[in-house]
């Protein structure tokens, strides 16, 4: 195998893994919220962008190291979500067909955040780039892998493992899964459903924020990423099965790797739309998603 072929192959694999893990993180965040409180959060892309922009401010304008700034911003997502939960989200917990109400509400949040970004960050720059977490390159055979992306990939992988472990083995994770499956039965078994709702909203958003800061560490970005990520996260959730964390994880990775591969064998344009085609086909045959409970 020639060096050129190895470089293309390794670039495809690393790109697929990088994108796949970020897609998975955001989709898991979206599906945790949807699975527990039935909120199809259309504002997830704006939350993702908010995290990335705050990281840009903290590291470029205020000079904090990106790693420290990232931790602070993920931490800030908790009071941010808590405030939203108190002000808006909990008011709809007992509303029939609340997923529609939540969808409209999240569209409103999307508009407000987009407006705020456009009159603040929008006049400072049209593109945003952070200093690297770590410098240098690691040679994987003939393929030069940037250490910064390698670090972002490793952190994303660790986060996914931690998240999966939390949901699988921790008491809160079990309570959350019980609420996912049957909230009335969970309540009868002593689970504080409202507390689980609140925790889910905060955890889901923290995971979306984590996706945003990792993306900002690995790539330059602009406002368009909010829309791209919102659509992608929804597509992954629908294909994986709404409320299925495993589905979001698996399909997110499949999306990332598929995009990277299709972009070589067809074109980047076809790659970008391939998952939407896949979503339509899967919805035709499995309307409830591949990993539906």
């Amino acid at each position, binding site marked *: 195998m020639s060096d050129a072929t190895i470089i*293309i192959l390794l670039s*495809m694999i690393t790109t697929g893994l990088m994108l796949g893990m970020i897609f998975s993180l955001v989709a898991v965040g979206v599906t945790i919220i949807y699975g527990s409180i039935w909120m199809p959060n259309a504002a997830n892309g704006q939350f993702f962008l908010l995290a990335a922009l705050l990281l840009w401010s903290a590291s470029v304008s205020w000079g904090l190291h990106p790693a420290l700034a990232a931790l602070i911003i993920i931490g800030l997502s908790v009071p941010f979500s808590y405030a939203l939960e108190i002000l808006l989200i909990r008011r709809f917990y007992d509303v029939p067909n609340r997923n529609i109400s939540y969808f409209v509400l999240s569209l409103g949040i999307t508009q407000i955040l987009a407006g705020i970004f456009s009159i603040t960050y*929008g006049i400072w720059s049209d593109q*945003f*780039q952070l200093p690297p977490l770590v410098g240098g390159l690691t040679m994987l055979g003939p393929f030069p892998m940037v250490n910064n992306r390698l670090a972002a990939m490793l952190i994303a992988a660790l986060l996914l493992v931690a998240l999966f472990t939390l949901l699988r083995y921790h008491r809160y994770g079990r309570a959350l899964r019980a609420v996912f499956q049957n909230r009335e039965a969970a309540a009868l078994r002593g689970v504080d459903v409202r507390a689980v709702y609140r925790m889910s909203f905060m955890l889901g958003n923290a995971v979306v924020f984590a996706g945003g800061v990792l993306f900002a560490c690995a790539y330059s970005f*602009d*406002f*368009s990423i909010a829309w791209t990520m919102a659509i992608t996260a929804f597509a992954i959730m629908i294909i994986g099965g709404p409320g299925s964390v495993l589905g979001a994880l698996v399909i997110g990775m499949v999306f990332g790797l598929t995009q990277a591969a299709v972009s070589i064998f067809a*074109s980047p*344009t076809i790659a970008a739309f391939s998952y939407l085609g896949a979503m339509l086909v899967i919805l035709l045959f499995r309307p409830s998603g591949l990993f539906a409970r």
Partner: protein
Amino acid sequence: MKRQSRILATGFALALVLSTTALAQEPVKIGFVTELTGPWSFFGTSCVAGLKLAELQINPAGKRKIEFITIDNQTRPDQALAASRNLDVQSKVIALSGPTSSDTALAMNGYAEQNKVPFVVPVAAFPQLTKPGTRYTFRIEPDAAGWGYAIAQFVAKQKPNAKVAVIYSDFALMRAIVAGLKYQASTAGLKIEPEILFPQGTSDATVQAAQVRAANPDYVVVIGAGGFDSTLTNQLLDIGIRTDQIIHPFGITTQVKNWGKRSVGSYYGTFFDANLDKLTAEGKQFVDQFRAQNDRPPSYIENYCFVTAHIIREVIDKNPGAGDDREKFRDAVSALKTKETTSGIPITFDKNGARKEYMYFMQIQDVQAKDYKSKQVFYIEWDPEVIPVYDLIK
């Protein structure tokens, strides 16, 4: 003594009459519809920052005031159209100006042509804005297909028969640049390979950077949109493409800063830069004032909005009646032969309102946190229809 007093009194009366006349004259109103919010807000607000600096200069005492009525189009063609109608019918502006996006400019262009309102476009490069038969629209920025022509000429001068990779985002602007480049490449003996198009919203180009490297081109023309442009540049450099192989068709300040130190040695095209060899005294003052106010040097966007205000001043000053009659204003702009206040580059318009076009190519020398240094390495001027721009881009 009596005679002196009489002369003084007459002079005073004359001055009073003249100043009263100037005061009595309504200001010349220009509708400035630009992108203050929405995805293009950076460009619209940058443009207005340039305009504000010009406004400090173009209304000296004794001259008829020119008033720019600035309205936000939210980067939406429908809003740009509604604002144009409002400025035309309600505010009765003598001319329209302001857009920095081809989409909003095209919406205003349709209104201007239909309703015979002169329209001076500071920053929009889509060729069809000045398609044959255009009468009321005048474009200050060269058309995007022409930029592609200029890149081909630059590469041919650097290395005859060069192999050029083109990697770009799927936006009308980028497609137009590539169309011009490919057209001229065949004439100039250049080989375009590979040509890679990315859809909007792409965030990663590692795989395509590897494909470009495998093709071993002499130059890589990189035309990404927004943040993807920096990602694309970084990933090409990561994979081993040299900086002096990279050509960006346009460089604005935020882009150059984001390309960063590692891009020293790469090239970019532009229409104005703080590092040009020949800036006029006004140009140097503009750069200094802009830098003091905005903490960064201006790029061609701010310059074109600054220059647009000066063009309108000159048109009003040299053509009596142009401030009150749209046809006279339109004829005056059409016949204008002047120079950019900041760089001395000639400004004339052809029969369709397209400007005599030009481009500088700069090579980056250093990039600091708030500034950068670059060196002018090539300059080219051309007729707007040197290549069939209106057939290439429909």
